[in-house]
């Protein structure tokens, strides 16, 4: 029982961080209607921003750098949205769906290779938020990972508040539900697109900065979180914030329990990702719109 609880706790801690990462992708999809295939690279930007800022400004507490890293990611995202995605919403692109896929894939390759050329291929790790481990009774968890999870939970809560209680949140939801109706009441959908993309990229960058002390960073570090985020948003329901949160936690738990309990221990870790994907496929088969997805109209 202790082992079950300790593995579940590990999965839950990771699941909350996965949810934060997936939320950014959901935000972008629900407002702009595109999937950002460079989402993992914003995660990578966050990690590197944190590392580079802390390397150049010694004496700064690593926690203070997390919002800075998020800001760097958000600014990159904003710039990219204005330069490359805005033409879609101004009807200047003939095949917008294909264009969106290609341009975000292009951004992904560009950012990986740019980082490889500028920072180099070697792994880096920013300093810990807090050194050592925390004894949770069943399991020792690194203070860094616990901090990342607690901050992710706080951010997810804050985002829910913003989405549900503020004018910007309501405007974003309005654009997500009906762009024309939103325009009628004076909401500028182009500005909302920029805000959503910048916020989504910023959330991925924050996730990158939060996890960099635990997992280190390399130019291609965003690949796994990125694939996992796509799975989470489809599992939870495309565009559903609640779905992303639950989807993240489910994937975190399933991956952890599978590695801990798969009958053949030699393959448990290898198939860890595959188990999450099996759950995802089952949900798609029996509930194609995902756990919390809206019905197509």
């Amino acid at each position, binding site marked *: 029982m202790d082992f079950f609880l300790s593995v579940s706790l590990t*999965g839950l801690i990771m699941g909350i961080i996965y949810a934060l990462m997936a939320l950014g992708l959901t935000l972008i999809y629900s407002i702009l209607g595109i999937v950002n295939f460079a989402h993992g690279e914003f995660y990578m930007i966050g990690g590197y921003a944190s590392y580079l800022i802390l390397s150049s400004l010694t004496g700064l507490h690593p926690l203070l750098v997390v919002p800075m890293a998020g800001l760097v990611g958000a600014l990159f995202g904003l710039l990219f949205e204005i330069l490359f995605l805005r033409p879609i919403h101004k009807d200047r692109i003939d095949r917008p769906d294909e264009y969106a896929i290609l341009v975000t894939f292009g951004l992904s390759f560009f950012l990986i290779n740019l980082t490889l050329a500028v920072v180099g291929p*070697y792994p880096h790790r920013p300093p810990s938020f807090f050194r050592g481990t925390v004894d949770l009774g069943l399991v020792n968890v690194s203070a860094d990972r616990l901090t990342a999870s607690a901050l992710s939970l706080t951010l997810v809560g804050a985002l829910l508040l913003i989405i549900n209680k503020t004018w910007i949140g309501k405007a974003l939801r309005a654009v997500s539900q009906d762009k024309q109706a939103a325009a009628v009441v004076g909401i500028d959908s182009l500005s909302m697109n920029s805000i959503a993309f910048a916020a989504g990229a910023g959330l991925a960058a924050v996730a990158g900065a939060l996890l960099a002390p635990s997992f280190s960073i390399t130019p291609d570090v965003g690949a796994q979180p990125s694939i996992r985020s796509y799975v989470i948003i489809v599992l939870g329901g495309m565009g559903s914030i609640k779905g992303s949160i639950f989807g993240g936690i489910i994937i975190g738990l399933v991956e952890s329990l599978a590695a801990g309990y798969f009958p053949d221990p030699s393959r448990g870790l290898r198939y860890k990702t595959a188990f999450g994907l099996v759950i995802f496929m089952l949900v798609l088969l029996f509930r194609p719109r995902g756990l919390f997805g809206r019905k197509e109209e």
Partner: protein
Amino acid sequence: MKSRSAVNLFVIALVLSVLVVSCGPAPTPEVIRETVVVEQTVEVEKEVEVTKEVKQEVVVTATPVPVSEMETILIGGFGPLSAPGSYQSGTQMRQATEMAVDEINEAGGILGKEVELVFGDTEGLPERGTAVTERLITQNNVVGLTGEFHSAVGLTEMEVAHKYGIPTVFAEPWADEITASGYPEIFRIAPSIEYYSSIATNYMVEVGWESIVFVVEDTDYGHLQAEGWVAQLEEAGVTDVEVIYADPATEDFTPILQRIQQDPPDMLAGVITGIGNSRMVRQACEIGLAPSAETAYYASSDAQYDEDFWENVGDCGQYVFFTFVGLPKTVWNEKTEAFVTNFEERYDHTPGAPSMEAYDATYLLLNAIEDAGTTEPEAVIKALENIRMTGALGELWFEYTSDNPVPEDEPDWMWHQWPTPSVYIIQYTEVDQTLEEAPVVFPREVSTGPLYTSP
């Protein structure tokens, strides 16, 4: 909602491909060999049907250009410079190869010509290795090849080099089959996997560990080592050995480490290249599994990059040990000293074993061309067979050649193989210890510290 359908389709395709890759066997290198099956009926007293299998190898010779007509002497390098390959090691190999070429050019070049290097990125993928080698030989017209890190890629490159008869000095792939192929064009200065594994196995046996868990990456690198260790340990009477496979890009090893912690072994090995190496060291340490008084920790050779290692693992790296291919500082020669100093000055990074091997492999190839007095492949191969050179790795030569075939009591992979590659076990006994400061703990005849220092 066209985009939603497209996304769903994409994600389903992604899932299926991940599942197929996860469940499938390790990639098998393609062997370019034509097999012609001839069925023949022979009339005897009784009618018997005989099936004969005739293997026919196709050898295509590249048309050599005379040296006098060459503007420069072009050599080809290959290795992983991007994911999914081990691009940290590949980058170092390219840098070391460039450094060797620049040094030779500064000293007047080869056969009165400047040497030019064309380096191909194989991405750690066997099919890319084939394409890159084809391109280097047929498009760039290189006169020799050097480099490579991954065995699975080296095995496919070897076939292309053999097809065109281009002399190739492999720097880092360990698969026994590389030189066991017996191909006249193929030479290697990296240790074979059998030899490499035996050093770590002998160490584990000498320390006396009886239960061992290997977490190895699910690639040729991990599989080859795990197979070698399991067989050799079993032979030595150590049977409580478990192997766990992992994707090298795994972020979180904690669940499997918690599982291992239920019954902690005497030794835990994390044989993962790149970023996975430091992740596993940290995570095993964070949950209190290893390195600990109960469980020793064996890391992958990436631990040799001391600056990166300490930056990424922090205090958790103390007491970790690993296999190092190359010369420890106590036995450096002048060439090693010069190589390390120049590499650090030029690239601002500690050189690892792959860079030393790539550097020496490039010198071997170019010195052989100089010795041969021509770029004619057969003459260069002959010169390589007769070469004796002091490199950064020590005295280099190839014991078994066309004039001195591999005897029956030696393994096949000794063909065109440098017979004495240096393989050591090194342990970091202090936090932030450099590779040069860390004691060599095995083999005992060259050790500079205790056999094993426990936390």
